[in-house]
Structure formats: C-alpha cells, structure tokens
C-alpha cells in the first residue's frame, strides 16, 4: 500500500522561504533550496513550493529557483503560485518541477485543470484549495485568501478531480500557521468525494 506522506509546504517570496499565521504577518525564515535539502535529509517524502510573490520581477526569480531546487533535492516536488496557463505549467515542467499546483486561475477558468491534465497527465496536476468556514459552510477563497468566492469546498474538490487533478492540496485559512486542530474532517470528506 502507498505509505502516508510527510510533505512540508514552503511559501516563497523573492527566493526566500517565508512564514505567516492565518496568511498574514510574513517573516523570512531561510533559503528555499537549503531548506528543501534539509527537509529531505530529515525524512520528508515530497516538498511543495508556493510562490507568493506579488511582482513580475519576483516571479522570474521563482522560475530560476525551480531549476536550482530540481538540481538540489532528491525527492519529488510540486510548485505553484500564479500558474494561469498551459504555457506557465510547461515552463515549470521544463525547469524540473515534478508537479504543478493551480489555485485562483483554476477557479476563474476550471478548464485550465483539464488542459494541463490532458497534456501532461493527472499525476502532474495538483489543485490547491484555500477555504474558510463561514456560518458552517466551507467556502473557497482565491488570491492568497484575500477574495472569498461562492464556490463550496467539497463540490469544487470533486469538480477538480473530475477534470483531472491528481491531488488536492487543502489549506484551512482558519488554521494556517497555528498548529493544532487542523480540520481532519475536511480531508476525510474531500477524499471520499
């Protein structure tokens, strides 16, 4: 049976790993390649790097960074952040990413998931979903959690899977960076649907 995986998820801004709480109060915590190497040596099974850069300049830094990560670490890694076209995905694949994750752009245009999965396979496509619980309903947010959408978490996870996403990367905005009580219920429900 496939083993449970430990997958550290690193937010990157301008080449550096940053850490926040509930998506805010970011502080720099280290070099992206160096931290990836350390996590892999300590037994991580995979890594996720999310580019949370705001500007174009920072984005091009990230593309170069992906190439250095691919050369530096010996485990699979996913990259995401700002991927909005098949070309974006292809560029990151060329640089050595094992998988890409889509988020806001897929909510705006769900066909993006189908396009990438049809071209490169489901194993290459992760759908990242940031959601928060409002009046008992889990609603999907986009743009780093800053925009609330009308989409409901479980129906979106199901659609993403049907369109060819191989994995779902779920983040609870209510728990981000706070450690205890990550809503395992949601993960179980997402897996069932």
């Amino acid at each position, binding site marked *: 049976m*496939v*083993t449970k*995986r430990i997958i550290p998820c690193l937010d990157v801004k301008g080449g550096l790993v940053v850490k926040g709480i509930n998506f805010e109060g970011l502080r720099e915590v280290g070099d992206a390649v160096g931290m990836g190497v350390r996590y*892999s040596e300590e037994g991580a099974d995979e890594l996720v790097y999310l580019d949370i850069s705001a500007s174009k300049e920072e984005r091009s830094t990230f593309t170069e960074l992906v190439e250095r990560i691919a050369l530096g670490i010996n*485990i*699979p890694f996913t990259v995401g952040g700002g991927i909005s076209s098949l070309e974006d995905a292809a560029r990151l694949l*060329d*640089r*050595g990413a094992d998988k890409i994750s889509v988020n806001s752009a897929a909510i705006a245009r769900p066909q993006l998931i189908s396009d990438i999965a049809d071209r490169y396979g489901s194993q290459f496509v992760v759908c990242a979903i940031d959601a928060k619980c409002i009046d008992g309903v889990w609603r999907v947010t986009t743009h780093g959690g800053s925009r609330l959408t009308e989409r409901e978490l479980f129906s979106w996870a199901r659609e993403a899977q049907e369109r060819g996403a*191989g994995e779902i990367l779920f983040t609870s905005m209510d728990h981000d960076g706070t450690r205890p009580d990550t809503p395992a219920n949601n993960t179980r429900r997402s897996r069932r649907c």
Partner: protein
Amino acid sequence: MIAIVDYDAGNIKSVTNALERLGVEYKLTADPDVIRRADKVILPGVGNASAAMESLRAKGLEALIRSLRQPVLGICVGMQLMCRSSEEGGVKCMDIFDCDVRRFVPEPGVKVPHMGWNALGNLGSKLFRDIADASCVYFVHSFYAGLCQDTIATCRHGSTLFSAALKYENFYGTQFHPEKSGAVGERILMNFIGL
C-alpha cells in the same frame, strides 16, 4: 561515461539532475556510436509507452539497445519498453524482459495512477546491495509489469503484486524513480553505476 538515451520521451531532467548531484560523468545523446561506447546506458521515459516506443524506433535505436552488452538501466516507461508488450496503446516492445505490461484494474479505495512512496520486497540483485527489504521508493505509473522469472524486486498496489524491478543478463529496469527516491534511490543509482 554514462549515456542517457535522448529520444523525446518526456521530462528526463530529473535523471540528468540526479547524475549531476552524484558527480557522475554523463552525456544526453541519441548518437548510436556514443551509446555503443558508453560504460553504462540509462533509458529514461515518462508518459505514454506507445509514443515512446514509436519515438525510439523512429530514431533507429531499438536494435541498437537490444544489442548492447554493457549494463543498461530502464527507468519507469524506459523499463516498460524493455518488456514484451504494453497494453498502453497495444504496442509491441523490445522483448528483453519476459513479461507484459498491463493497466492496473480499478479497485475500491485504490487510486490509479499508483503514485507516491511504496515498499520494495523480495530484493534479489546487486542493484539492491545495502538496500533493506521494505525500503520505500517513489512510483508514478498506471501500467505495471507482472511477475516473471526476471523479477528482482516486487511491490504491491491494492491486490496487485507487480515487478518493481527486472533484470535479464546485462539489462536492468526499475518501475520506480530512483532519481526521486531520496537516499535509497541514490544508493540504487550508485549500485548501477558500480556494476
């Protein structure tokens, strides 16, 4: 020098990156002379077996690879191409390993593609020197090679026990990705390089 066969078979950067990390001299090439003279040959492969086989034939490399006498390692689809045939596109392959490649049959609670870290069993080759039984390695595939006399490692996905690695004479193949399997994978690559 290690020749990595360049035949437009998907993303093979992970293989060249792994050899860079290990400090091993390699050349990415489709030149028959370079491949023939190399100490070792790696046949990578990602994606569709039928398209990969077509591409290998179009470059005139099928007969060359079958004729090699130095150690050859097929990885993932590269390994599948060394089997008799593949259900993926119903393609006839190189017929080096004595088995056929089939699609995983769907079962409740068992995901296809088989993707992630899974344990190796029944290790039986110098390729796995110093590798403990039940070591985990990284797999990404929807098709598998069955068990046969050439099987040198097994793995289980759902109710299917399949060949995680194969060997016939100087030909080796791994269904998993040693270049993505951390320290265990690096050890396996170094074992191959040291053959």
